[in-house]
């Protein structure tokens, strides 16, 4: 009998029908097994998560107790239970960094970052590690990675704090230009909170941008007109900008307890009250101011030279004679002769500069005489 004969083929057909039924049964078994396995795997996952949480808690306690090595071990075990849980990995990296294992901490964070390159916390932790190593470029890159991803709405303040941190880091490493960029971004999005404006203003001042510093201090003062810190800051920023009238206005209201206020106030007062070339003063007043300034400068230099400073030169000694000569040559003429007055201002400035160089520190009046000369010299130019 061949395969094609009816008896044989019908047997095979019956076998195939039976096989189809058996396959169907197997598929049903597989489906049931799938759900059973999935449920068991889920409970296993729960168990691992619970283990992870237990180790994490233990690590936190070890860390609080100052047992960093035990904390590292506990956090490592926590990450086993849930390898992608950012909290655990960040805690591990933090503990490693505390233990002085910066490289290991970096590797842990970089490993996690591969799965979540835009994670703020990871990038921030990497930035701080790089900042600790003084690697400005890398730190700035990770700070930017953290800053330029979308942040949750309720974390705007944190984002602002991170940008401030970056600006401080850049300023600390002498990177003024990028720091100013960060500060400008920061200033453009500040809410009407005087404290925030004041902090940004301080950073602008530290970066040498007194214009923006003054703007931000004034912003703060609009919301809180009697804020002492802002008054002092605004006064000092205005002083640095040469806006002495505005500086005096703020410094007069600023309390003495704030460092530098008294000094700045004296300086401003001298610059305004001792300026022989100030507008709207009479000729007599101008002559008096010039005489007084020159006398002060000459006395300062004489007193200084009397102590016999080793660095004194003949040119320094000649300045005293120059002062006497100027007094003799222009006695009574400076009230009308503006050129002579300017020459007197310049001479006083040169004398106090020399005196300050030979016998520091400079007094507020010394600095005032220099500023007066600079003010008019700049405006002449």
């Amino acid at each position, binding site marked *: 009998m061949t395969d094609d004969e009816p008896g044989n083929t019908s047997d095979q057909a019956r076998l*195939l029908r039976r096989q189809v039924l*058996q396959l169907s049964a197997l598929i049903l078994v597989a489906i049931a*097994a*799938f759900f059973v396995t*999935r449920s068991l*795997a889920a409970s296993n996952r729960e168990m*691992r998560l619970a283990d992870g949480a237990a180790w994490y808690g233990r690590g936190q306690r070890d860390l609080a107790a100052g047992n960093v090595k035990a904390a590292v071990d506990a956090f490592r075990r926590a990450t086993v239970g849930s390898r992608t849980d950012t909290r655990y990995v960040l805690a591990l990296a933090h503990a490693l960094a505390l233990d002085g294992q910066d490289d290991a901490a970096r590797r842990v964070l970089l490993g996690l970052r591969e799965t979540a390159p835009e994670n703020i916390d990871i990038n921030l932790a990497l930035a701080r590690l790089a900042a600790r190593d003084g690697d400005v470029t890398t730190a700035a890159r990770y700070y930017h990675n953290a800053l330029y991803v979308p942040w949750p709405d309720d974390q705007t303040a944190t984002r602002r704090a991170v940008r401030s941190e970056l600006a401080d880091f850049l300023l600390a490493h002498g990177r003024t230009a990028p720091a100013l960029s960060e500060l400008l971004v920061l200033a453009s999005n500040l809410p009407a909170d005087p404290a925030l404006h004041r902090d940004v203003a301080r950073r602008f001042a530290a970066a040498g941008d007194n214009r923006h510093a003054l703007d931000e201090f004034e912003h703060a003062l609009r919301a809180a007109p009697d804020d002492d810190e802002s008054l002092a800051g605004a006064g000092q920023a205005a002083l640095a900008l040469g806006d002495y009238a505005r500086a005096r206005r703020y410094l007069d209201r600023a309390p003495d307890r704030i460092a530098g206020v008294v000094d700045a106030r004296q300086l401003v007062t001298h610059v305004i009250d001792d300026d022989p070339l100030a507008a709207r003063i009479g000729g007599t007043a101008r002559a008096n101011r010039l005489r007084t300034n020159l006398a002060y400068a000459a006395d300062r230099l004489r007193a200084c030279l009397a102590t016999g400073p080793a660095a004194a030169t003949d040119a320094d000694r000649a300045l005293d004679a120059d002062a006497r000569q100027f007094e003799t040559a222009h006695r009574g003429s400076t009230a009308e002769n503006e050129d002579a007055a300017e020459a007197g201002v310049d001479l006083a400035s040169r004398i106090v500069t020399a005196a300050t160089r030979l016998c520091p520190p400079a007094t507020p009046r010394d600095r005032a005489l220099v500023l007066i000369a600079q003010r008019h010299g700049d405006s002449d130019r």
Partner: protein
Amino acid sequence: MTNPLPRTLQLRLREHQIFLVLSIVIGVLAGLAAVLFTVAIDQTSHRLFGLTPSRLRLFLIPTLLSVPTGVLLATIFPGVRGSGLPQTKAAYRLQGGFIRARVPFGKFLTGVLSIGAGHSMGPEGPSVQIGAGLASVIGRWVGLSPTRARDLVPVAAAAALASAFNTPVAAVLFALEEIIGDLNAPLLGSAVIASVASVIVERSILGNEPLFHVPTYHLVHPAELAAYAVLGVIGGVLSLVFCKGLLGARLLFRRLPRWTMSFQPAIGGMLVGLALIAAPAVMGVGYEYVDQALNGGLLLKTMALLCVMKLVATIISCSSGAAGGIFAPSLYIGAMAGGAVGFVVHRFAPFPTGDPGAYALVGMGTVFAGIVRTPMTSVFMIFEITQDYQILVPLMVANMLSFLISKRYQPLSINDAILQQDDVHLPPPAADQAAATSVTARALMRADAPLFDPAMTIAAAAARSAQDRSTACLVGTGRRLLGMVTAEHLAAALAAGRGAEPLKELLDPDADTFVHVHPDHPVETVFDRFGQSGGVLPVVSRTDARRVEGVVTLDDLVAFGRPRRQAPKPHVEPAPPVSTSAPSTPASSIDTPS
């Protein structure tokens, strides 16, 4: 109208379709079994040890729990000791893919008990045996033809491994390379389908998490290749130490009295318990520590210590007969060794280098390639785990060196060597077998092989030998061969006045070899080995190299005549030049390719 297909052809097509669907179902079931097995081990280990086990617990649990496991392994499930891969290979190559129904269940139970109790072993090998066992049972139940039922075994093996490692490509390669022994096997399609089905199921349950979280590594400097080559050499040496150590320790356990079989896993468990007290990190699978090594989370000293401890603990666990695999331990040992080498290179190399984690990654592949002897699988496995193309070149360099060194000094893979130790001699892979001549030892041998009783006196044996004009006599009882004594030995013993002593006294208790062939050996091999045999060449079974199926004498060869062939083919034989054999009997076998 076109003619319809003949009815028989239609039926055959439907059988193909059924096999295809069955491959998918087997893939799903094998994948589920592998996931379930891993979960069960995890749960058992967690419940037994808790978060921070005490020293006493670390010692007692593997010791005590190995007692019932040992009893189960010795009495109810004798075929599931060790990893299960050698048994699966033997079932596919020698037994038509037949695996008893109790094997997958026994493997699951004893595997969970062994690995969960802290034995230093992995779940992958057992998963393969469980999957293959299920496939074999289902194939028979569905009534597939014997060939089709046999084909399901490697298909299920691929699926189980794919699920266990989450590496579908490497799993398929492994099934072809190791189980079938032929990368061109026609089962490739079915293995791929089953592997994919298994991985889909596994990922839908466990998520698409790779086995290890590995940062992106690459070759930092071309000179680093030299460092990776050194790692390959170290990996090769470690593989060699592992294989030799395991086989040696296994032999020691096998030489213990038979009644100790039930307690051997407990002896292993006790020794492993001591190791756990010293280094708890070598417990069980240990992938969490591999993960740490890959991510640079372990220090040099820790990795070096764990490498040695894991090697020792795994040798003890495996040789004692506990149920568990060697894939995970080999990855562990490799990662620790690689990480340690990486640390040294990173610190002292005069050129920029990658992180130690990169070396740990490559180290995993080198030791795996050296121990399991599947170089393609090892490369693809690491590639799939990392999904990083950059690491391939150093990986291939290191893997090949490790593979070559290991193969040079330990010709058989560990799985084949274990089978040889159990007197199971695998036939050559299908492709080589097909190329061989169709005339085999079976056609030449005489089935009525006379065995000399070991209790017979030497004088009687010499007389019978002279009467038969045979140049050697096979000593054994029934069909069971104990060894061989040549006529010269008999004559010398007689001359020494030892004629009254029993014949077994002439068997060398330390000799582990005797020349033999298997019934499927080509006639060229028979001729070649006959020259080494002393005049009588036993033909023994492949599944039990102690069972004599026949004998070939000079008369048989003369009667047959040497076949004329244009170019004598080199004999292809997977067996080693010298194979060790059962320790219960002093003699052993030579399975020598010429």
